[in-house]
Each structure stands twice: as C-alpha cells, then as structure tokens.
C-alpha cells in the first residue's frame, strides 16, 4: 500500500515537473506581449512558453472569440458577395476585414432591432471599430507571405481554402491550410512550386 502511494506520488511529481516545464515562460516571454507599435521591444518569432512552440509545431490554433456574433450564412443568403466586404482581395495580398463603416452602410437601416445589431450600433456610436480576432494566418516562423490577388485572378473560389462559408456563422478554419494542401493544388494546376514563391 505504502509503495503504491509512493509510486503514485512519484508519478504525480513527475507530471507536475513535466507540465511546469512546458508552462515555464521562455526567456522571450516578456517581449512577446502584445504591445503598441511605439514599444521599444524587439520583434522576435520566439514563443512565450514551450507549450506554445509545441502548439505551433502541430498546427494547433485555438478558435478565437469574436466580439460580435457575426453570421456569414445570413449575409450570403442576402446575396452579399464576398468582395462587398472583403475588398482588396483581387488587388493585393490581403482580403481585409471590413471596418465598422462597411457594416453600418446597411445596418443603419436593416435589422436594427436585433440584439447583436444593437451591440454593433453601440460600438459605432462610441466611435470605435470592432475588435475582430484573426482567424486565418500563418505563424511568423513559417515566413509565408500569402497573396490573395493571383488566386482570385486564377478563379480559385473562396470556399476552396475557406470552406463552406455559406453554412458558417462565425468564420472558422474548416480547411487544414498546411503546406501540403497548398502544394497539392499548385502541382495539379502546374503553378510554381518554387520555395520563394511563398517563402520570402
């Protein structure tokens, strides 16, 4: 009995040691805080904890919590095209998240009584923009610079990478956007697979 307890306590101590090892802040922990651009801190792609590095390695990203319960499905049902809000997708690298002015163009008039729209109007009246949390993106250490425009010009539909947005409420990463996914399409369409096409 005693030896069992000793054994278990050893396991417990081992577990505690391992988890604290993973949670121990790395030396760069202090510098990888989200600070303003005026900050004197040096940018580094290092991670705050070892657990974070592990997460990046396996490609695990948590689902962000958005400030408003925006539903894509509702807007697409109302015949609003992707590019009505995500302007710039055929002009440059970034599709862009629309600012609150874009929302208010319609929502000054439509669905004003809905609770989420009331929240929206509240944010607008306080002179602020919605703090949308990023859904898509690559980790800095991947050194990937994705450019939307050539993909739009090649008639790649938004749903190929972003999933069936028509059925989504909040945007989620429905498609696993790893390098293999990109390469399979690039190879199929016989487009450049040179490293420097995306990593520069």
């Amino acid at each position, binding site marked *: 009995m005693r030896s*069992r*307890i000793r054994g*278990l*306590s050893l*396991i*417990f101590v081992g*577990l*505690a040691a391992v*988890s*604290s090892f*993973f*949670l121990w802040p790395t030396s760069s922990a202090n510098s990888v*805080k*989200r600070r*303003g*651009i*005026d900050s004197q801190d040096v940018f580094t792609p290092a991670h705050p*904890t070892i*657990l*974070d590095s592990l997460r990046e390695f396996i490609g695990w990203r*948590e689902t962000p*919590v958005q400030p408003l319960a925006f539903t894509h499905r509702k807007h697409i049902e109302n015949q609003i095209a992707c590019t009505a809000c995500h*302007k*710039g997708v055929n*002009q*440059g*690298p*970034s*599709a*862009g998240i629309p*600012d*609150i*002015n874009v929302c208010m163009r319609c929502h000054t008039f439509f669905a004003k009584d809905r609770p989420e729209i009331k929240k929206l109007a509240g944010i*607008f009246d306080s*002179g*602020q*923009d*919605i*703090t949308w*949390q990023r859904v898509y993106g690559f980790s800095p250490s991947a050194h990937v610079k994705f450019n939307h425009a050539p993909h739009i010009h090649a008639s790649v539909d938004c749903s190929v990478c972003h999933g069936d947005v028509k059925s989504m409420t909040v945007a989620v990463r429905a498609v696993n956007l790893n390098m293999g996914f990109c390469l399979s399409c690039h190879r199929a369409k016989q487009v450049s697979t040179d490293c420097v096409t995306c990593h520069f």
Partner: protein
Amino acid sequence: MERRDFLKVSVLTGATAALSGCEKPAHTLVRFIPEEDLIPSVATWKPSVCTLCPAGCGLMVRVLPGEAEVVRNGKLGTIQMGLAKKLEGNPNHPVNWGKLCARGQAGLQITYHPDRVRSPLKRSGPRGSGSFQPVTWEESIREVVSKLQELQSQNQSESLRFVSACLRGQRHELVRKFLSAFGAPAAMVFDPLDEPVLRQANLLSFGQADMPSFDLAHTGYVISFGADFLGTWNSPVAQSIAYGEMRQGRPGNRAKFVQVEQRMSQTGANADEWIAPRAGTEGAMALGLAHVILKEKLRPAADNKATRLIAGWSQGLAEYSPEQVERKTGVPAQRIQRLAHEMAAHLPAVAIIGGLPLAHTNGLFNALAVNALNTLLGSVGMPGGLFFTPQPPSENAGSWSSESDFASVLLAGKLDGTKVLLLHNANPVFATPAVWKVRETLDRIPFIVSFGSFVDETSQLADLILPDHSPLESWLHDVPKSGTNQAVVSLAAPAMLPLHDTRAMPDTLLEIAHQIGGEAAKALPWENFQEMLQASMAPLRTADGINPPPDPEKFWSKVQEQGGWWSDKVRQAARSAIPQKQLVTEFAPPQFDGEESSFPFHFQPYVSQAVLDGSLAHLPWMQEMPDALSTVMWGTWVEINPKTAQKLAIEQDDLVEVRSQHGKLLAPLLVSPGIAFDVVAMPMGQGHESFGRYASGRGANPMTILAPMQVAETGSLAWASTRVQVSKVGKAKLALFSGGLFERPSELQQR
C-alpha cells in the same frame, strides 16, 4: 492521505496546469474607426515636397495602410490608416529628377518620432523648465487671440514679432499678409543655411538677390571657393546630378574641378586639385586669377556692373599680380598663373563661392570678387555657367527683401519692445554665439508661442506650443530658388492623415486671423490653407501658353497628381534692383577675434552633412549615418592636422578643450590630413541641451564659442572669424564606423 483524495488532487492540479496555458490575453486596446477608404496591403505612391533644406526637392511617398497607435479623445488605441513608409525623389521634379539625399530620406522619421509634440501644450512651470501640460486647441487659440487683441486695443500691434527660417511660396505669403494686416513688422528670418552675404553680392553684381544656380553638366572647368556643393550647400542634389553629367555625360570630357578651402569637405574630396589659401583670402585669389586673364588677354576685358564694384579693375587689377596674391594668400604665384591659363583654355568655366569664405569679415568682398571673375569668364547666363532660376508668375518678386534678419534686429536691441513672439522652424537659442545672449533676450518677452513639433532650446521658452503637422501630414507649397532652369511651384496634398492632435501652422494662423477679425480676417479670407493654395494656382493655368488653357478643376487635379507645376517656357522676370549706394570694394584682410599668440588656430565650424545646422539632430538615422570623410557617428569631433597634433602632443580620441575669447567647449579629437596646419574645424549641429532623446546631451555646439564679429556691409554673423586655442583635458572615444581616415592605426602614429 487516501488514494482517492490523492488522485483527485493530482487530476485537478494537472488539469489546471494544462488549462492555464490556454489563456491568451485578448487584444484589449481600443480600435478606432478608420477615417479613410483603405485597400489593405496595397501601396500607393503620392507626391510630396522635402522641406529639410533650402533646395526644395520633390518627393514621392510610399503609403501603405497599416495600424498606428494613436490617442483620440484622450483614449489610447489603434487605427487603420494610410501610413508613409518610404521616401524617394519625384522622378519628374525639375530640381532633383527622382534622386534624394540621405537627409531627405530621413525626413520620414519626423512623422513617427517618439518625441513629437502630440497636442497643444501650455507652460506649467517656470520658463525654460520644460514643464508643459496638454491643453485643447480651442483654449490655446483663444489665449493667443486674446493676447493679440490686447495688443491691438493698446495700439501696440508693432510689438508682435514672427521669427522663422526662410519661408517661400504661399506659406511666406500667408505670414506676410497676416503680419502686415495686423500692423506688425515684417517677419524676421533666422536661417543658418541661408546665404544673405551671397544674395546681397548677387544683388549688387547682377541685380538679383537670389542664390545662384550652376549649369555644371555643360561646363568645362569649375573652381569652387569653399562651397560644399555636393554635400550641403545650396541645392546639393541638383548640383550632384549635374556634376555626374559633367564627369560622365560627355565621353572624353571630364572637365576639371578645383576646390579651394582650408578643410577638405565631402565636395573637396572629389576635386582634381585641392588648394588651401589662408583663411579669408579667397577673394584675393579670385582676383589674382582675373589679373592673369586680363593681363594676358586670355578673355575679352569685361566692364560691367560686377567688375565696377572692384577697385582697380579697370586698371587691370594691379594689386593682384600673382606675386602679390601669393603674399596675401599663401598660394604660389606659379599656381595662380597655371590655373588662370587652364580656366581660359577650358571654357566654359565657372566659379562658385559659398560657405566659409562668405563668413569672414570680408565675406562680401570675396563674393563680389568671384562674381566679377565669372563675368570675365563670360559664364553669367550662359551654358556651363551661372544663372538664376526663373520664378513662376504667381510669385511675388522680391519676396526675399521684405524680411529682416533676426540677428540684426536682436543686436540692434530692437527685440526689447516685443510683447508677443511667434516661433516657426527656428532655433536661435541653439545656433547663435553665447555672447549674443539670445536666451536672455527672448526670456524678457512676455508671451512666446511656438508652432514647432519638437521642444528644442528655443521652444522650451514658449508659453504655448501649437504643434504643426509633420511635413508628410501637411499641404505643402514651395518655390525653389535655385537648382533648376525651369520655373517651379512644388505643391502636394498631405500624404497621410495626422497621427496626433496637431494642426497645420497655416491653418492655425488663418483661424487666429479669423477670430481676431478686422483687417487680419479681411486679408486672409480663405477657410483653410488648401483653399488658399488652390486660389494661388489660378494664374498658372494660362502661364505656359497652352491654348486652350485647361479647365480649372482638371488643372488643380493634375497639379496635385504630379506634385506641382513647372515650365521651361517662363522667361525670367526682370527683377527690380533695389537702388544701392555706390559701393566699390577693395581687399581688406579678414579680421579675426583673438590674438594669434594666445589663440593660434582659425576656428571653422561647418554645416554638417548629417544634421545640417542642428535642425536634424533629432533624427536617429542621421545620427547613425557615418560622416563621409571621417566615418564618425553619434557625436561631434574637432578636426586637426596630424603635424599640428604632433606639435601639441595630442592624438586622436583625446578629449580636447577648444577655447575662444568668448567660451569653451569639449569634444573628442579627430586627426585629419585634409586640413590646413593653422585651422581647427568642427561640424555644427550637435550639443543640443534639449531636442528629444537622440540629440539631447550629445556632442558639443561650436556656435556657442563664436565671437560676435560681423561681415562688413551686411549684418551677418562672420562665423569663420574666431580664433581658438586647443588643449588636451582627458580621454574620449570617437564612434567610428570604419576606423576613420587612416587605413591602419599604425599609419596614424607615423604621420
């Protein structure tokens, strides 16, 4: 403990441990609503104008939407806005043709500088303490208006004074109109980069009180007396482009370039021949060359306005024979002979004068001598020679002559009655001799307002700071006075929205005028500066003779799109020469302050290629930029000849005290072979007490120890007339990028 409890505890601990890593602090900064339509990640290039030196080059600004941290209504947050990312030259601008100097590139740092004044400030402690507190625009403008109305009601409008660097274009017009309508005296100019002695000489010799331009691209021979024309003088980018064409644009013809100065400048390092006459004798040397040309009839004898100003010219300059000139200047007679023959054999030839030779007590004589030489060479108004940039018909001719010089006003005691002083782009407390006591004089003025973006030595004395936008956030209008043979009006809309709670100085002045009412409001009817600029462009619509003239709206768009208006079809307007008393000059040896026995060295401060007169010392890129000749960064130095250093038993990196009769300073020593034995030189611009984190408490300011000597017949400070002594007081360390002027340290010991 019981096993169950044990297991519960470990599961809980383990689970908590694993979960705690999941928490990520949400981005809690407020996000403000963007104020413009932006396409993310797509850059546009917008035209602008560089305002950092008198050249007035045209810029292109790369603007990319991005996130900026700003304060709006007292709240800190972020906003998506178009942000200027990079400056380049405007390829179509007739001054710089797409090129840009390092200082122009660094102008980007003004906009994002951490020490920028971000809102109006009111003095909250004793004057000069640097304690300010933020106030609103409404309050601060109201305070200025009430002070000015007080002056008016007491019939004291003439005790309002305005001091700034040389203003041009519509900004100059606005200030002029404001002061004149208010009943205040004309603005005072304080601008160490201006050359009032040369402009006066040009007025006397050629009837134009302007900076000269040089057609170097087509010249066969250029001799420059002290002008750092490839570095900091006049219109350096335009001159450098022309110099490049002179050297490489005509296969087989490199022309010849001779530089005459006591301390090798960045320009002098490019010369084919470098000559160091005695300080202040450049004019005598020029006349020595003229003597040989006249005597040996190498050119037709010239008899005109410029030559009649030189005593003895019509008699063949008998006192300037090569032997006599050798005695005056130290330049061998044979060299003078050879140079004169070379010049005449390689026409077109042109002579340039600028910088130190004009800063001696006989500076005006030196300039007139060179002007006369140029007329003898036939270079005035001819290809390969000297000319004056045409002025666009929209501009007021003679705009330079209405201002008074700040130094003259100060020294004549005329600032003492001032009740309100407005400061714009001027730092006289910094860039003047301590013996002038500028700080003490300004301190006696009851109310000082600065429009500056930074708290420098002068604006630290202000009671109110009404911060201007940075240039990239402003409507800009400029009329270059040199560097091009086209009439140019540079005009640009703001390249980006303002980051902080600042306002364009012209708009602030217009607001003040409107609130004062009366004559001031009537003279300035425009709602804002943009309106005033648009109105000012109207006469140019028909100026270059295009028939039918373009539609006004289209014209205004086109001007903004290209960054201005320019035309080579505008004939130079004939300037009305202000009648001058008959002036005939002869060589007067330069006077120096300090006995040679106690103060053996000529002290030559010079305009720094990194920070100019100190107005750019707050830009870290310029501090970081190694000096072209010495590679020194982030500091000041004193240059001395190796033989002289040996005699004084001092060496590089020694901390030396440079002492004049009027002050002393400490700086590290730099040993340089490119300087005359009896000269000690220092770059201007460092030694700020207050000018932000990058400039304050760094280096030493050579202007402080200067003697209060003046250039004869002008009011200008003769900043080359001070003599000094040099002694070692300790050790310092120069921050050298690449070891300096000697390839190996051992070479330093050998010399």
